């Protein structure tokens, strides 16, 4: 009875998870290299940035918003951190915190434009996407190649108890987001304004605060994703994160969160992000022709989501 309900209400993430398992099994037959600890860690690291961003995106989408600026915000963190530390000699830890703070402010600005400027989230964050990217190009234009110090790279290369740090960071973020959404007042209010803003308003929920918070949270996730990215690449390329918005949104939706808001869960997003990472890693490992990769990835994703939906909404 209880299990039955859990299954019923999480049908999409669960079947997406099953698809993931099927794909993993298939790939481990196709290549001996696939199902090795080192490759699994590999996948975990590769998934981490998209996953961290997608967590923030999940929060925003549950509140019936959307955030297209994630890629640019990620680049913003990286550039601010790099310009401060590499070019201006500020301590890397301090510089990172400033980079993160700036990005949270930018995210918050998204929320303010959406809430008080009444600009549809799509346009507001599309605007921020352009503006933040411009800022990144401007502040890094004098410094074509900035590399981070070796110590900083530990964030990408280090391990704790043999587990790579990026995987641990994503794990922590997943737990934090689960707790936020499931066990805090703010989380519940996020579902409420996404499900029916008017009913939420008439229940005394502070809509502006909740809405703006979702975009700040997304900003924070982008910032964290940016730090991991920076450590992974060891540099501050101004084009970092281009096109990430579609990947993050795709991970969220594959996981069963609906773009119309009010429903969705974090574990689905985790499955979605891993599904994407596994497919992309697997296709490289089994040497699928690059021309075919787009076709295969597109088909698998559509197919996985289709499986999880068929019969689900029968009356």
């Amino acid at each position: 009875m209880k299990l039955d309900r859990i299954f019923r209400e999480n049908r999409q993430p669960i079947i997406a998870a099953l698809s993931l398992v099927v794909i993993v099994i298939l790939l481990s037959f196709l290549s001996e290299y696939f199902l090795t600890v080192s490759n699994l860690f590999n996948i975990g690291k590769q998934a981490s940035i998209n996953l961290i961003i997608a967590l923030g995106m999940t929060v925003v989408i549950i509140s019936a918003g959307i955030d297209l600026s994630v890629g640019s915000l990620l680049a913003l963190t990286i550039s601010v951190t790099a310009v401060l530390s590499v070019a201006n000699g500020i301590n890397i830890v301090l510089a990172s915190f400033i980079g993160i703070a700036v990005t949270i402010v930018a995210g918050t600005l998204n929320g303010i434009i959406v809430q008080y400027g009444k600009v549809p989230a799509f346009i507001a964050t599309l605007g921020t996407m352009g503006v933040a990217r411009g800022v990144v190009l401007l502040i890094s234009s004098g410094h074509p190649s900035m590399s981070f110090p070796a110590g900083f790279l530990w964030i990408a290369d280090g391990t704790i108890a043999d587990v790579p740090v990026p995987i641990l960071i994503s794990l922590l973020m997943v737990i934090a987001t689960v707790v936020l959404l499931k066990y805090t007042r703010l989380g519940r209010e996020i579902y409420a304004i996404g499900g029916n803003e008017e009913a939420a308003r008439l229940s005394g929920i502070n809509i502006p605060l909740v809405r703006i918070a979702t975009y700040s949270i997304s900003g924070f996730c982008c910032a964290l994703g940016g730090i991991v990215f920076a450590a992974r690449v060891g540099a501050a390329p101004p084009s970092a994160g281009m096109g990430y918005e579609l990947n993050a949104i795709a991970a969220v939706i594959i996981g069963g969160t609906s773009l119309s808001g009010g429903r969705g869960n974090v574990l689905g997003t985790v499955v979605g992000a891993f599904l994407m990472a596994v497919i992309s890693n697997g296709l490289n490992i089994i040497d699928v022709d690059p021309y075919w990769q787009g076709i295969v990835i597109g088909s698998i994703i559509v197919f996985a989501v289709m499986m999880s939906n068929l019969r689900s909404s029968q009356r």
Partner: protein
Amino acid sequence: YAADLKGAIVVMDLTTNAFQIEMADQAVAYGKEIGADVKAYAPEGSFGDYEGQISIIEDLITKHVDFIVLVAGHTTALVPVVDKAMAAGIAVVNMDNRLNTNNVVSYVGVDNGQGGKMAVDYIASKLGGVGKIALIQGETGNPVQILRTKGFELGALVHPGLEVVAQQGAHWTEEEGLKVMEDILQAHPEVNAVFGESDNLAVGAARAAKSAGRSEIIFVGYDGQQGGYQAIKAGEVAATIRMDAHKMVQLSIDAAVQYIKNNKSRDGIAPETYISPELVTSAEVDQYIK
């Protein structure tokens, strides 16, 4: 003589950038020629997905390939993962866009700055040293764009009669070149010559001039792509700066093979090899058209 070697060429873009596609194709073909199994990889994402290149190299390390020819998307971003690959015993050769490290088997490339300068010199000679020129840049902030722009700007200083009247950014595509050129023709109709930082850009820009009945404007491209050659043959583009993909690939793979034969030692391998960019005009173009 390189039988059974597994190799890879990793480029940035196998979809939009004809020159990178050309490099990839050449590498696969040259691999066949010498009996090595070379495969081409590029990130799924669009412009500037360095992170995707890193993931690919991580996957290649997992697969224990023998060598990687890397056309890096960024000068420093790929250094950490290249270090890892080298440490794993994979021969990494850096090709074309130069990495900010010496921990590779060898670097084989073309001096993009020199190419930019060659383009201006050619334009100056065609205009008799006097005229107005426009620059259509590639993806703003991209390292190749930065080098080519620098070379162009330095080159232009040498020709006091040349005036740069417009400088606009575009992605590396034909339609962006077309659109930017349409706008330049509105604001600076007096322009005499245009340098596009890739053949795509030059071809698109030339198309805009032709539509506007301004076929006399001189266009110079960069890369030596088939599209560019065709346009030169058709008289729409005056010249391109050719980078010999075949030669670069050959030098790169040979260096990798030699490194493996040497028991992973760089002894006797040139740490860097530059091949000169060549100017291709209608006089030379026929030999390159496929």
